[in-house]
């Protein structure tokens, strides 16, 4: 493990080396999607150039080799989240797809009229809407656990709301808007005391911290490759074997069955049962490469460095009177949301862009959270390990100029 040096790391990310509006790009929109290191880009190129073939289906050499590589990618993902078996890793299109899969298949099998599904008030639309839909379809009801002003969930609040009708708890590991790292291990533990399984939306956790699904004892854990330096169009559903065995398939089509006749079908075992159609092969290969890249740096170094970045960014913003940070939990990943009093986030974001600073403004697909804070949106700076202290300085300078222009 080499000593962590962001200047060296940045060289791995070609997208960072560009000018935007004549300024060096400062990319603080990593929560939306992260950039890709050259090794990931190269592995995708290498796949299409030399290895392209369909998997699982052919007896010929190219097909056999890429099937092996794809299954090896599954094993890489398994180790990344420390799953017990590689067949507990289902490849999906992304976090949204993973959550929809569970909402459909788990819901079909286990959720009935009168049952309850529990989420929190800080969820992303992708971890709200599928449950609203499920509850509407099944006549179940959605319970929403409140947060406090700092943007935290209290474990007791969660535990209190669980009833005998609660069939599933779905909660985010890290809030994409607030940065809060939720106490999911405790929440899972308490839910399990009541025999309630828990789905974790890990989209914003996997780029920042080490996830161990066995240690967490999570029943389902969902994430997207594109937010963790991997390709677009691919994601992961981790699920305990027992659930995968009990759940009916979600999508159906080629690859999910053993035998088909018009009279009936026999399904293949998980994960194939949940992977209908030709998968995003290049995506799986690229994701495995991204994981290997992250592992080379190591989460220990990533977490330490990002924490310093976060603290620095927050302290700089704290010094500005007109700025209010939204999300003040003590346990945060490298995400800072804020508003500038009297100004619309959109205006601030527009001007920051003119200075080459890419932040995201708006509700960040967490409208209920915005309603809770009674704001139209925030300005969000979401950082990655390739960001630097200097970039934060430049961003703060640009922010001051923007405020001056707009006030």
């Amino acid at each position: 493990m080499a000593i962590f040096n962001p200047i060296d790391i940045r060289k791995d990310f070609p997208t960072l080396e560009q000018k935007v509006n004549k300024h060096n790009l400062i990319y603080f929109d990593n929560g939306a999607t992260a950039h890709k290191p050259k090794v990931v880009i190269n592995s995708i190129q290498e796949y299409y150039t030399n290895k392209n073939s369909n998997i699982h289906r052919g007896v010929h050499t190219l097909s056999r080799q890429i099937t092996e590589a794809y299954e090896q990618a599954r094993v890489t993902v398994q180790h990344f989240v420390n799953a017990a078996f590689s067949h507990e890793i289902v490849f999906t299109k992304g976090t949204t797809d993973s959550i929809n899969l569970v909402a459909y298949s788990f819901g079909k099998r286990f959720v009935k009229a009168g049952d309850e599904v529990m989420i929190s008030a800080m969820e992303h639309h992708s971890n709200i809407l599928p449950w609203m839909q499920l509850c509407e379809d099944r006549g179940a009801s959605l319970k929403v656990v409140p947060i406090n002003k700092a943007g935290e969930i209290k474990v007791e609040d969660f535990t209190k709301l669980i009833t005998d009708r609660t069939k599933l708890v779905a909660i985010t590991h890290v809030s994409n808007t607030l940065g809060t790292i939720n106490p999911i291990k405790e929440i899972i533990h308490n839910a399990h005391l009541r025999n309630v399984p828990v789905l974790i939306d890990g989209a914003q956790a996997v780029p920042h911290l080490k996830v161990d699904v066995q240690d967490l004892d999570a029943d389902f854990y969902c994430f997207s490759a594109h937010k963790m330096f991997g390709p677009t169009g691919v994601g992961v559903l981790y699920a305990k074997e027992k659930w995968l065995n009990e759940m009916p398939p979600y999508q159906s089509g080629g690859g999910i069955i053993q035998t088909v006749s018009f009279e009936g079908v026999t399904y293949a075992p998980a994960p194939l049962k949940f992977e209908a159609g030709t998968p995003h092969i290049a995506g799986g290969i690229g994701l495995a490469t991204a994981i290997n890249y992250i592992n080379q740096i190591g989460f220990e170094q990533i977490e330490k460095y990002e924490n310093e970045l976060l603290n620095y960014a927050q302290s700089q913003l704290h010094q500005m009177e007109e700025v209010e940070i939204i999300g003040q939990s003590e346990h945060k990943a490298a995400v800072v949301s804020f508003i500038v009093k009297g100004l619309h986030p959109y205006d601030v974001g527009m001007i920051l862009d003119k200075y080459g600073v890419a932040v995201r403004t708006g509700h960040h697909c967490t409208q209920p959270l915005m309603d809770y804070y009674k704001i139209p949106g925030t300005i969000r700076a979401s950082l990655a390990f390739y960001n630097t202290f200097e970039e934060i300085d430049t961003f703060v300078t640009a922010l001051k100029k923007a405020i001056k222009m707009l006030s």
Partner: protein
Amino acid sequence: MSIEENEKEIIDEFNIFGDDWESRYEYIIDLGKSLPLLSDAEKHDNLLIKGCQSKMWLKTYFDGTLMSIRADSDAIITKGMAALVIRVLNNHRPEEIVNAPLNFIDAIGLKEHLSPTRANGLTSLIKQIKLDALAYLSKGSSETK
């Protein structure tokens, strides 16, 4: 003045700024600040244009010959942009409005506001103004939308 003449006038004004985006934006921001386009009482939800990150309200009126347009936004740059569009289109006949190419936005270096990202309401604003114009055209009599 015709729509084209209005556009020409704005383009000439912006030409002074040259390559300097800061002056251009300061101009837009000033426009946004100075013009109280709709009163708070008028900002009904049914005037809201869908799909913008900032809120945008639009109110049009047709007297049988000319169409007048008012709009507002809670974001100042959006409001400034709306003010420019209104300055160009206001008090013209619906058929002129329907057919206006509005090239001036590109010409004054603010094309970025016409992107299809849903963050931005300008495209939706123009679309809705033209839809209103079309509706007036087909009905012909005076009306408010």
